[in-house]
């Protein structure tokens, strides 16, 4: 067997910088396999993009506007089942219908929305307000919007890594804007060293996590936010109040799947004061940094 060389392919997808790193015997093999992984990311980006009229999400939201129903494909059904599970396990905090709240929250404006505008849109938020049953998605309440923003990127990282494994790549890493899934450790067995951002100096790493396998994801109040009257308001919105989560500055979780790691970080951030306790009993390795810069967790 020829010695393996390391190759890295950078690309832009899912709204940010991405990369596929892998070990292969030749440039030819590496390029071809990386292309398959990248194509899978593009495929999911196109399929679930809010910004494309022809995406499955747009099709679903168009049906919702009419108060109708739609039968979805197998993959979308699987994702909706996952969304239902995570909504249930997070006691309603992780809700794929909360995307509509972005209509009232404009983080670039520097101005808070009025309580009235939030209350006007809250009736459209709530997974329990739609019917998801046996491949049929129905909207008895018109105007609910689905947004797979907290799911698709992490799922795409898992899928891209799975494809590389299927094609025979044993060592590598997929990174989609901070969401990471390991294909396999370095050929000598050593883990990938993943940097965790300092929530107050996001260009700097505050910790390095060794990752032999599995996925890693982070959520923080530094990703999209505004500061009004000295108070920070971030993009993670609580679906029952319509207001941003307040408590932890950032959470990083390691899990077998990047999808689960991502859901765990989002839920922990939304849990506010109970976030740390919830993370502790979830049983996954994590690093949470609170507003005072204190580190908590097993990583």
């Amino acid at each position, binding site marked *: 067997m020829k010695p393996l060389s390391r190759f890295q392919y950078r690309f832009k997808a899912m709204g940010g910088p991405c990369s596929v790193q892998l070990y292969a015997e030749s440039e030819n093999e590496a390029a071809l396999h990386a292309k398959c992984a990248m*194509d899978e990311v593009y495929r999911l980006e196109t399929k679930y993009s809010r910004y494309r009229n022809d995406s499955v999400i747009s099709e679903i939201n168009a049906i919702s506007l009419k108060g109708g129903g739609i039968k979805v494909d197998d993959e979308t059904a699987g994702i909706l089942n*996952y969304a239902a*599970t995570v909504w*249930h*396990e997070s006691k309603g905090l992780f809700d794929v219908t909360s995307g509509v709240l972005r209509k009232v929250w404009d983080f670039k404006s520097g101005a808070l929305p009025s309580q009235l505008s939030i209350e006007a849109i809250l009736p459209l938020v709530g997974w329990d307000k739609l019917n998801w049953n046996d491949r049929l998605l129905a909207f008895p309440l018109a105007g609910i919007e689905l947004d797979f923003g907290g799911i698709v990127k992490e*799922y795409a990282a898992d899928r891209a890594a799975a494809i590389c494994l299927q094609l025979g790549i044993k060592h590598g890493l997929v990174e989609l804007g901070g969401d990471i899934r390991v294909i396999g450790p370095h050929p000598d067995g050593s883990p990938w060293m993943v940097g965790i951002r300092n929530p107050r100096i996001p260009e700097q790493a505050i910790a390095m996590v060794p990752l032999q396998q599995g996925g890693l994801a982070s959520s923080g109040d530094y990703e999209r936010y505004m500061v009004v009257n000295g108070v920070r308001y971030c993009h993670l919105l609580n679906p029952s109040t319509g207001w941003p989560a307040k408590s932890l500055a950032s959470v990083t979780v390691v899990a077998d799947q990047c999808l689960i790691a991502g*859901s765990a970080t989002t839920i922990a951030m939304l849990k506010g004061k109970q976030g740390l306790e919830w993370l502790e*009993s979830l049983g*996954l390795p994590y690093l949470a940094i609170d507003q005072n810069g204190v580190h908590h967790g097993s990583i």
Partner: protein
Amino acid sequence: MKTEKSRTLSALTSAALAIPAVAVSTNATADAPPTMTEVGYRYSQYQEDDLAESKVASGSTQRYDINIHQFRVLTPVGENYSVDTTFDYETMSGASPMGTIPGADGDPLLVMSGASIDDTRMDLNVKTTRYYESGNASVIGGYSTEDDYEAFNLGLEGEKHINDKLTTLMGGIGYSDDTIEPTPAPGRVTEEEKYTATTFVGIAQVINAESVLQSSINYAYSDGYLSDPYKLVDQRPDSRSSIAWNTRYRHYLGSLDAAVHADYRLYADDWDMVSHTIGFEWHQNIDPNLRVIPSFRYYSQSQADFYKPIDVAGIEGDKSSDYRLSPFGAVTFGLSAVAHSYNWKIIVSAERYIADGDLALGTVETEHPGLLQYTLLTVGFDYAF
């Protein structure tokens, strides 16, 4: 408390793992060379039925037996190229019709060659393809040889995808130069040549998520020595011009997990021959590693205008009693089984062909006594690495 929250992790994990892995399609979305090198081998045994004694005036009643070995290597080269090489090695033996004479009731009888003809044929073909963002282009070269025959051929082909890769335009040109040096016999030509130029254009369209349709037209022009030197009485025009219109349809039936193939070809040439060919294949998946493919083909051709069922020596003009220029119909029944996994495939198949004047679309007044029946058996494998 801890058990309840670990239950959360289990619930999430089950739901995450339950998202079905979508089949990754590299064919339908991008034009790319194959990712792995593939090798294939097939061994086939072709056996024509013996002739009925009543149809043979003289010579052997045995017909052709052919053993065919096919080899193939398809390999990616660099990021944008692939090379597809095939090599065929055939050994054949048997007797062959030399002409026809009238029998007692006026119907033609075959004059067969006596001794068995033994021949070896080899064919090498190389196709190099360059892949682009929305299409590909190929250069093809081939060489083929038999004891009395040699041919070179060259071709260029291309495909262009448009309309979000739902429509494909295809075209190509080809040229071939054939030389025949028949085994010597008094009065027989010693060396002759034939040139053939071909061109085709076609279009393929994705109809919906389960169906695709392709239609193409192929034009061929041959010039030179087109007759059969081994026949007692055979003189054909020194050119032949033909058009073939091919249409193919593929449809996937999700509820049955089967794909149906339907092909139709209409052929016409300036020897006045017209033929219709219809083929069906049913690709049935039994389980993820086994597919069974029954198939059926119907063929009907009309006669060439200079075809004469009974040879008459000494008359002027073009003439031939070759059964391949006679009017007839034929059916082929086939069955294949393919056992496969992601990088290998084993194939076993059997086919039975029967040609008969009664199977033709029009009325055949005099059926040629040399119409064929054969059985073809094939075993083989493909392997990718």
